[in-house]
């Protein structure tokens, strides 16, 4: 009991740390609350974008500035004389702030007053504070004590009065882990081994086997392909093809070989600048050559070169730091303390490469592979004599040059150490242990990929306007594990999947439903629709059609005629022959102006810009694709044939049982088998004529298609 109490205090403290003295903690709490009021009610008009009446409350020094009209907004220690207070309390509704929405409550005003009187100290943004490294306090139940994750989750559940959830059925667990780790359903042998021996040791072996599968890299590379805005075409009007698949293969291999995240980051951002850079190090830099290239006639190459450079900087900050810099192109950040000038100083790191929106995408690297050679666009630094100056663009206009700037990172982030002032220096600064953002952002992304929602829901925004972590102790624990595991992402994924928190049932208790309806406390396993790629891959795998060939040029599975109608180009979609039609979705040719429609119906993104998070939506178009896309229709028929072959002479109910079990990886209930058999009987009757019996294949195809549209089949449960 004592331990539990200590844990609760710890949770509370962590929200306002680091001050330790009681009055400091109280002050810090008030500062947090006061700052939240500024962010939610003031910065929209008095932040970096609008600065109405010349006032920017996002920065403390600017809020304190002497003003031409009236007193400063904030006079530390003197709330009564501060304009902020007088304006929120003004009698005249025309003059009372905020100008929009209801007046501040008495409680909110009191908070602001106490905060200003105490010195108006701006709190350090939670995501920029040092990561709290300690093991969460011991759990209320010994079973939940081993894992730090389990300690944090069980403490939270216990303090909320929610009973600790029970473990999911063994076969469901193996399916869940296989889909999460490899994006594919599990092999039957893996399932039966764990069902026969559902011990902790066997679970470890199961997870390790999945992590060792080459399918692991294919599944996790998908996340980084969205971040890399990876596509097989250049974008814009002509959207011509470009050979960049070597980068996709590099990415898959990097995951499979468990390249530590710090090395991964250095290679992707600046592999060409590493001493003794290898061919693979250079291929990694294709990441930032995946920006759009505009081949349209009359385009100004410099304009689009600059657009690409901006995109590289914005993408880097978004993907690694969870910071949106895009808006800072034209003005200071609306909510965060990032200035207009900071955008260009950050961009300067990327402004020295030799590429220049040329039609041939040069500079290119020639790479040999088993079927000849291919070229891939890579990053290459200009020689010292040709280095460019970087200037601020006034209001974001690339023709209106302002001051020259040197490469640097915004002052609100940890200071620069001794790093070089080039891309490699930027990569090293990002991965420096003094920067708490990189570990938090990547650990949160891994959490989101597994559990469907991040501990910080806004993966793209760890700033003032983003959501706060649902559990800051848990996030910091996971982030510190990533660092302590030597930046091994595979090891972190393993730790998460081996936790008790991961293994719980998806079935919520009554208390869980009542107290934690959103499942933010992890009171049950989340259930959500699989991502586009997994939906296709799983269907092909269950059908026995999936071709597991890895790597190589993109492939062209079935796509409806007339999907590509490309301007000024005769480029057409020629459906691949043989096994290439059934490769994993990650190998499907990706045209930016027209991505594969079936994937798009399941919320894949066009990859024109860096996408941090796919938003899952439920539309009838997804249902239509799952029912009628020829790939799924073909998969259903193949699955039916597989079932017929596997169960010769079986009754309809028995065959239905085999199919449900093969697809859902669990023992079906009798009523489910009976209902499916009833469908089969109906189809057989409908298709039987006086002269001809029904085709068993088509009858069972209806059953297969039905199973493959079950919500359970399409979901991670």
């Amino acid at each position, binding site marked *: 009991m004592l331990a539990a109490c200590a844990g609760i205090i710890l949770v509370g403290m962590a929200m306002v740390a680091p001050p330790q003295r009681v009055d400091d903690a109280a002050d810090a709490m008030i500062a947090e609350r006061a700052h939240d009021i500024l*962010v939610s009610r003031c910065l929209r008009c008095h932040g970096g974008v609008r600065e109405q009446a010349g006032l920017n409350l996002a920065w403390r020094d600017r809020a304190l500035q002497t003003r031409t009209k009236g007193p400063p907004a904030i006079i530390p220690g003197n709330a009564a004389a501060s304009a902020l207070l007088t304006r929120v309390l003004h009698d005249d509704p025309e003059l009372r702030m905020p100008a929009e929405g209801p007046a501040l409550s008495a409680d909110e005003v009191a908070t602001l007053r106490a905060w200003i009187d105490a010195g108006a100290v701006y709190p350090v943004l939670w995501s920029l504070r040092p990561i709290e490294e300690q093991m969460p306090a011991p759990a209320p139940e010994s079973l939940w004590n081993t894992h730090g994750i389990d300690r944090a989750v069980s403490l939270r559940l216990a303090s909320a009065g929610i009973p600790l959830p029970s473990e999911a059925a063994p076969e469901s667990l193996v399916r869940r882990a296989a889909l999460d780790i490899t994006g594919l359903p599990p092999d039957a042998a893996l399932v039966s081994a764990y069902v026969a021996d559902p011990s902790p040791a066997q679970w470890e072996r199961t997870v390790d086997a999945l992590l060792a599968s080459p399918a692991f890299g294919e599944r996790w590379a998908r996340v980084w392909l969205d971040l890399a805005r990876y596509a097989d075409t250049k*974008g814009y*009007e002509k959207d011509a093809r470009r050979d960049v698949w070597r980068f996709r293969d590099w990415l898959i291999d990097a995951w499979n070989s468990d390249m530590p995240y710090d090395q991964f980051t250095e290679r992707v951002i600046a592999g060409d600048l590493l001493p003794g850079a290898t061919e693979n190090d250079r291929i990694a830099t294709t990441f930032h050559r995946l920006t759009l290239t505009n081949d*349209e006639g*009359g385009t100004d190459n410099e304009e689009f070169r600059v657009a690409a450079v901006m995109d590289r900087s914005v993408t880097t900050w*978004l993907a690694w730091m969870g*910071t*949106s810099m895009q*808006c800072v192109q*034209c003005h200071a950040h*609306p909510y*965060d303390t990032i200035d207009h000038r900071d955008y260009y100083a950050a961009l300067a790191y990327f402004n020295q490469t030799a590429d220049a929106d040329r039609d041939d995408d040069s500079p290119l690297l020639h790479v040999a592979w088993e079927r000849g050679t291919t070229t891939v666009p890579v990053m290459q630094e200009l020689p010292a004599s040709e280095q460019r100056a970087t200037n601020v663009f006034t209001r974001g206009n690339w023709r209106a040059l302002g001051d020259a700037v040197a490469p640097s990172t915004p002052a609100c982030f940890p200071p620069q150490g001794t790093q070089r002032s080039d891309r490699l220096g930027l990569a090293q600064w990002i991965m420096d242990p003094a920067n708490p953002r990189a570990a938090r952002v990547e650990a949160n992304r891994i959490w989101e990929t597994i559990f*469907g929602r991040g501990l910080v*829901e*806004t993966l*793209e*925004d760890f700033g*003032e*306007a983003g*959501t706060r972590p649902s559990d800051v102790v848990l996030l910091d624990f996971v982030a510190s594990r990533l660092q302590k595991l030597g930046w091994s992402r595979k090891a972190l994924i393993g730790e998460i999947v081996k936790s008790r928190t991961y293994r719980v049932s998806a*079935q919520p208790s009554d208390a869980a439903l*009542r107290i934690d*309806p*959103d499942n933010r406390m992890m009171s049950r396993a989340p*259930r*959500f629709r699989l991502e586009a790629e997994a939906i296709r891959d799983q269907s092909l795998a269950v059908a026995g059609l999936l071709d597991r060939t890895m790597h190589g040029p993109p492939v062209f599975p079935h796509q*409806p*005629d*007339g999907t590509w*109608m*490309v*301007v000024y180009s005769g480029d057409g979609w020629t459906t691949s022959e043989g096994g290439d039609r059934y490769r994993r979705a990650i190998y499907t040719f990706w045209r930016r*102006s027209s991505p594969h*429609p079936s994937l798009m119906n399941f919320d894949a993104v*066009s990859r*024109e*810009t860096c996408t941090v998070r796919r*938003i899952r*939506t*439920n539309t*009838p*178009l997804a*249902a*239509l694709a799952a*029912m*009628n896309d*020829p790939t799924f*229709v073909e998969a259903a028929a193949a699955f039916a044939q597989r079932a017929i072959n596997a169960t010769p002479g079986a009754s309809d109910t028995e065959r239905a049982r085999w199919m449900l079990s093969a697809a859902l990886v669990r023992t079906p*209930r009798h*009523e*489910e088998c009976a*209902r499916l058999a009833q*469908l089969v009987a109906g*189809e057989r009757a*409908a298709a039987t004529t006086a002269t001809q019996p029904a085709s068993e294949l088509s009858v069972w195809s209806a059953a297969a*298609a039905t*199973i493959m*549209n*079950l919500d*359970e089949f399409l979901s991670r449960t």
Partner: protein
Amino acid sequence: MVATPAEYMAELQAMTRRQFLGNSAWGIGGVALAAMLGSEKSAHANTVSLPPAGSAIDPLMVRAPHFAARAKRVIFIHLAGAPSQHELFDWKPALVRHHGQPCPDELLKGEHFAFIKGHPTLLGTPYKFARHGRSGQELSELIPHLASVADDLCIVKSCTTDQFNHAPAQLLLHTGDPRFGGASMGSWLTYGLGSEASELPGFVVLVSGDKTPDAGKSVWGSGFLPGAFQGVQCRASGDPVLYVKNPEGVDRAARRRMLDALQDLNSMAVASAADPETDARIAQYELAFRMQASVPDAMDISHEDAATLEAYGATPGKASFANNCLLARRLSERGVRFVQLFDWGWDAHGTSATDDILTQLPKKCQESDRPVAALINDLRQRGLLDETLIVWGGEFGRTPMAEFRDGKKDFFGRDHHPHCFTVLLAGGGCNAGTTYGETDDLGCRVVRDPVPVKDLQATILHLLGLDHRRLAYRHAGLERHLTGVTPDARVHSGLIA
């Protein structure tokens, strides 16, 4: 504080989830109503960004506008490639008088052309203009049918853009951002208002001319908005909507039987989970089943009477701009919020007979003039014109100078011109029978009432009852609007009746 739709949606989802899980007797409607009435968003705007993953509610549920709307829906006809205002609307006798003379230097200062090289010469239009209707609007001989509905047109001669290449200019016009990644106007409108067409997509795209627009499907993409709001392309050949047709050997009765089994099996598996997101996903199958009937029905023009087909020049079973105009009326009738037409082939540079103002442009006018006029008349006859806003235009204008690419003078055409272009409005509460804005004597720059693209967007939203500043979505730390981040777009009251 009035919640933005994003906040409203997030709140709605959270509430829906809570209500479902609490076994409340409230239905979706009750919850939605409560969310709308009690829209004072709790405490922190910064707790809301994108809606939570997964959507428990129908994202296309009808939502009330910010204020009384003049129009309920939009038909946006985009002539991709950009038609020439000089040949159609913006009659400049001085340009004709000075035809063939070198372009005055002051028009070239600081200019940046897509293709023109060297010092270009002025190009007067070869076509005749006349005044039409009671309003006396001035229109070219190339568009006699549009001239017959001159009193229904609000002719905006002073539109401007800052992009002079097709893809970025199309993106700016449709998404408010010349770069990729923005949300298109149809997405914004269905996000803001939902759709009354429960068995059809709320945002339908119809393409003619055998090509998609230069910027690809991004011009009807949902960008940073959830994918449920992206435009759905309906096609004249093949499946009218991708994957809407059952596979060979599965008829409607068989599909029904499979869906019945699917529903039964789903409910056996999730009966106790009571997860609203699961329920929402399962419900999509019934909607998909209804769409399988309603989409082909909406897209089938074969039952239109002969007079209607004749008026549009439409031919059942053929892919054409005329058919698409007729389909636009059918979809509007069924409550589709935003119908987007793209017609390719208007990029008349004058490099060959296929992109010349003496051959290609008249051909395109012939294809499009009659159907657009027929659409206006048809909507009026059905009492739909007042509540349906038609927008007609390209992504930019064309130069007053001839292009003569590579010095060849065999054909006549004009280069891209961002400084002025003409857009037509009709119906939907626009100021019909008027001309708005004016360009200089050579039709090169706007001299009165300039309407930048963002102003056009703000005005269209206004006609639909939406304040362009309040129609917002928080994305990546930024409050996004169709009209851009900065609040300088304005509604032009001169465009409104």
